[in-house]
């Protein structure tokens, strides 16, 4: 199935053993490089050229540009300046990254990943590095260093697991974003992320799905729901004056199991009598500007949501199931596209769809038949960006409890994976942070190992059959990667898919009851 070895999982205790350091196992050229026209659209320098062998050059003055950007960023981001300075090399983070656990390449240890940037920072911007480079491990900026950056900063999913365990909260995600922003400015933009963002600017979503196609898709989903339940549930698009604007990752429009989640939100809204709409202009919850460390592009994408909300005259903004979309929404949207004083102040801006579903379940407003999910035993994968990058429900830890509460309210069989692999210690799916691309398949497969190990454990010992997630990237990554570990793709489900299964709509006639 692959030209590299897929890690072995045992399922014994659900915890991946820490491998011995094995240098250069993941040395390589990194993901595909973004072409000049996409760089331009992002307002990055684009004077790079391809040689006969198809390799892209760096921009002519790459070295000055890189150092200049590094200097600029450390003055605009305290995280970067502080984290580069204060790491004591204690090593507490070294066994915390799923990419290190899955690949054994020491440059995938969080602190070593930071050091790739730190050694250059020290060389050019600190006293000790300028005068005693050998002593403090400082090195000159060379093309090889740029190559290493490009390769290893694209083996970090910016999941922040390392920051939980660092005594100073040093967050390698911040370093990795800064590094990618520097790379953006020397001609090493990443094709996958920049192309996708280009589509958002041009069309409104990552998939490049234009309005008519979107309308068509939604109509198809309405038919599916009516076929299944006999109830007409609407999935409105660009409906002016609706109360709620739903922003959801575009994968929800077509991918499995995402789309079952989308139908779930629609059914919940319908049952609660909420007047809602999607927007074709802002038909994307995902914001890849975060991945590439570009505040400006992240802000530009976020502004589309503000504009859509104003144009449609909605009162509330609600986000669907997506991990980093929710981090950008919960933690950054107010900063990037606020203030939202034109929306109904009774509701947080934005809200998560689970912040609607869970109170509705508690209030008994939804008619739930749990037994409809009896064919499954569920576990829940905490998506890293939700677990460690955002909150939910306005209480500390709500992002762990609310999804679990909802799952338990609609399913009879639920078990958690081992404690070291869930909640704020959760392992990334292996595909976050702009890694979810076919040119990084090996990184994705190996990075999934710790999660697969935990899943195997509960599968073997607790009879788990399905794993639920609330992130489009997790769902896409898992459906693609779990077959490598002996599972099947239909074992991944959306949380609102479970809700949808168990929810009995007013007037529902089940398809099998009809005949």
């Amino acid at each position, binding site marked *: 199935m692959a030209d590299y070895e897929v890690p072995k999982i045992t399922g014994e205790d659900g915890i991946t053993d820490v491998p011995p*350091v094995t240098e250069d196992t993941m040395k390589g050229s990194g993901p595909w490089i973004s072409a000049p026209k996409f760089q331009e659209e992002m*307002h990055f320098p684009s004077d790079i050229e391809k040689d006969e062998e198809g390799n892209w050059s760096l921009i002519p003055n790459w070295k000055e540009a890189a150092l200049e950007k590094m200097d600029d960023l*450390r*003055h*605009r*981001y*305290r*995280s970067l*300046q*502080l*984290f580069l*300075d*204060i*790491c*004591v*090399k*204690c*090593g*507490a983070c*070294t*066994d*915390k990254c799923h990419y290190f656990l899955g690949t054994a390449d*020491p440059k995938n*240890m969080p602190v*070593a990943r930071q*050091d790739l940037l730190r050694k250059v920072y020290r060389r050019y911007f*600190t006293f*000790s590095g300028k005068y*005693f480079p*050998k002593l403090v491990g400082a090195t000159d900026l060379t093309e090889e260093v740029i190559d290493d950056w490009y390769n290893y900063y694209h083996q970090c999913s910016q999941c922040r697991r390392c*920051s*939980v*365990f*660092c*005594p*100073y*909260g*040093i*967050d390698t995600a911040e370093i990795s974003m800064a590094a990618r922003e520097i790379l953006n400015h020397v001609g090493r933009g990443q094709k996958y992320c920049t192309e996708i963002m280009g589509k958002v600017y041009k069309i409104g979503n990552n998939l490049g799905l234009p309005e008519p196609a979107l309308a068509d898709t939604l109509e198809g989903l309405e038919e599916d729901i009516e076929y299944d339940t006999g109830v007409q549930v609407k999935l409105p698009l660009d409906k002016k004056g609706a109360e709620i604007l739903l922003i959801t990752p575009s994968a929800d429009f077509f991918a499995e199991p995402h789309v079952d989640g989308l139908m779930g939100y629609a059914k919940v809204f319908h049952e609660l009598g909420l007047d809602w709409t999607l927007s074709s202009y802002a038909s994307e919850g995902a914001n890849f500007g975060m991945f590439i460390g570009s*505040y*400006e592009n992240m*802000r*530009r994408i976020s*502004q589309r949501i503000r504009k859509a909300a104003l144009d449609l005259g909605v009162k509330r903004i609600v986000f669907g199931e997506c991990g980093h979309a929710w981090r950008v929404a*919960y*933690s*950054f949207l*107010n*900063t990037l596209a606020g*203030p939202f004083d034109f929306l109904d102040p009774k509701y*947080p*801006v934005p809200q998560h769809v689970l912040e609607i579903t869970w109170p509705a379940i508690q209030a008994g407003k939804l008619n739930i038949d749990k037994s409809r999910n009896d064919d499954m035993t569920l576990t829940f994968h905490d998506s890293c960006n939700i677990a*460690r*990058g*955002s*909150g939910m429900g306005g209480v*500390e*830890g709500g992002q*762990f409890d609310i999804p679990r509460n909802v799952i338990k309210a609609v399913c009879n069989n639920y078990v958690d994976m081992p404690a070291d692999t869930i909640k*704020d210690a959760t392992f990334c799916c292996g595909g976050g942070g702009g890694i979810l691309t076919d040119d990084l398949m090996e990184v994705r497969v190996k990075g999934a190992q710790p999660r697969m190990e935990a899943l195997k454990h509960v599968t073997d010992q607790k009879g788990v059959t399905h794993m639920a997630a609330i992130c489009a990237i997790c769902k896409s990554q898992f459906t693609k990667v779990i077959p490598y570990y002996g599972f099947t793709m239909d074992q991944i489900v959306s949380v609102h898919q479970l809700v949808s299964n168990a929810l009995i709509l007013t007037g529902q006639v089940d398809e099998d009851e009809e005949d």
Partner: protein
Amino acid sequence: MNALGLIYGVLFWLATLTIVAGIIYKVRIYWKTPAPLKIPTMPAPRTKGGVVLRMFREVAFFHSLFRSDKLLWIFAIMFHYALALVLLRHTRYFTETINSIVLFLQPFGKYAGFIMVLGLALLLARRFIIDRVRYISAPSDFLMLLLLILIGISGLMMKFVSHTDIVTVKSFFISLRTFNIENWTLPADPVLLVHLTSVALLLLVFPISKLMHAPGVFFSPTRNQVDDAREKRHVADWAAELDKQGVDYLSELKK
């Protein structure tokens, strides 16, 4: 006054000024550099009081470290707590009258030096033994531990092996403070000189080294931010300029 006293007097004044000025300079940078986005590692406290508590747990008990590595946590606690005791006890060499807390701590402080050196030795051993930690260690990481060990051992030797003329040393440090140059006198005791030289070196490198983790941790945005992004708009000055001028890119800003 003697020559040694003069040399070390100048050295210690220099070192003290360097560490104070250096820390102020660095901390000013941390203070002034904006954190443009809310990035607390979640779940994070929802109030300022909660953040104070979180920071206290980190600084006093190394809470995150406890979660990540129990053995390292024990070594780190041994070293840092013992160091704190030793430092407290050392204030007796800088003041005429000895504070009652210091008197109370005296017996513990005396032996804390052993725990400190043991903790440091274990930390050093870790750097050699664990392949991951060895990989990330630069020469300066080993040297820093060795320097601290040297300080600890020379201190212990004076306490338990060959006593130095502590009365003269105390009067030296008090006169350093009061600038009473006539009394800048030090005994020519090699162990004492090793101790003092290595301490001065430590003070000198503090602001340009990883020792900045001590003041730095308080500025760590992942630990000191309140989880209130939805309730309160948080915008850095440089980013607010984009809003004000209605442009998308910093390069489009008019000065």
